[in-house]
């Protein structure tokens, strides 16, 4: 490979008239790909209370609480401030109670707002 004087000049001039590669993210939203791992969504009627997800969750972000002693009713508390969006709960759940949505702008000013409760009415 030979040494030239300022070999980048042609490429730079080409860039000058090209559309900039910058993504103006917060002003122009870009779509997320299909299968993106966003928020965990819980579907209370399907839960059978096997607790596999609680044991498997690496971030200890899931709490499953039995609502009534007699019925098989469970509520789930998702600590979204701890969730690492690995989707292991989706894989582990035998009844497909979980799925991930495509939300990724999760920042809030108060961590308490990230605690989400899913309850069967």
């Amino acid at each position, binding site marked *: 490979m030979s040494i030239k004087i300022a070999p980048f000049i042609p490429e730079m001039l080409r860039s000058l008239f090209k559309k900039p590669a910058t993504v103006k993210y917060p002003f122009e939203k870009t779509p997320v790909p299909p299968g993106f791992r966003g928020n965990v969504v819980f579907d209370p009627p399907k839960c059978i209370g096997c607790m596999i997800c609680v044991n498997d969750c690496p971030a200890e972000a899931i709490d499953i609480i039995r609502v009534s002693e007699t019925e098989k009713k469970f509520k789930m508390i998702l600590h979204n*401030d701890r969730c690492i969006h690995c989707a292991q709960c989706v894989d582990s759940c035998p009844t497909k109670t979980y799925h991930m949505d495509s939300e990724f702008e999760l920042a809030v000013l*108060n*961590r*308490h707002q990230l605690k989400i409760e899913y309850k069967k009415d």
Partner: protein
Amino acid sequence: MNPETIIEKINDDIKDKIQEAALTAPRRINVKVGRERLNEVLTYLKEQLGFTHLGTISGADLGESFEVVYHISNAVTTVNVRILTPRAEPKIPSVCAVIPGAILYERELQDMFGLVVENIPDPRPLLLADDWPAGEYPLRKDWHFNRPAEIIPGGE
């Protein structure tokens, strides 16, 4: 050269220096030696069989004793040279004279397990914080970390 010939060679040449040599998995040889013979065995492996690359030194707390494993590789296989050192007298010899690259791993062992590496060229602490209390070795099984309750700032 393949793992089988290497283990034959080890058994032929330094049978008297090692306690045990076995092929445990594909391309993995386990060798057990007494800690006073460690440097001789490593020198032999390095000079006769071309085991020059020390992957790492792992320590493990077995309760009564500490296990220290030197993972040393050449182009075809890896030898795990294992020594044991009693908890009462946790001393291991330094291998820096044979493998100069071992220094950081030995310092890490000193920090984490409180092993005393004899003749180490540079005994300063490596990984722990400057104000870490003396005599606390986090990877020992009797060192427990009590996780504090999580405090989430801000109101409900």
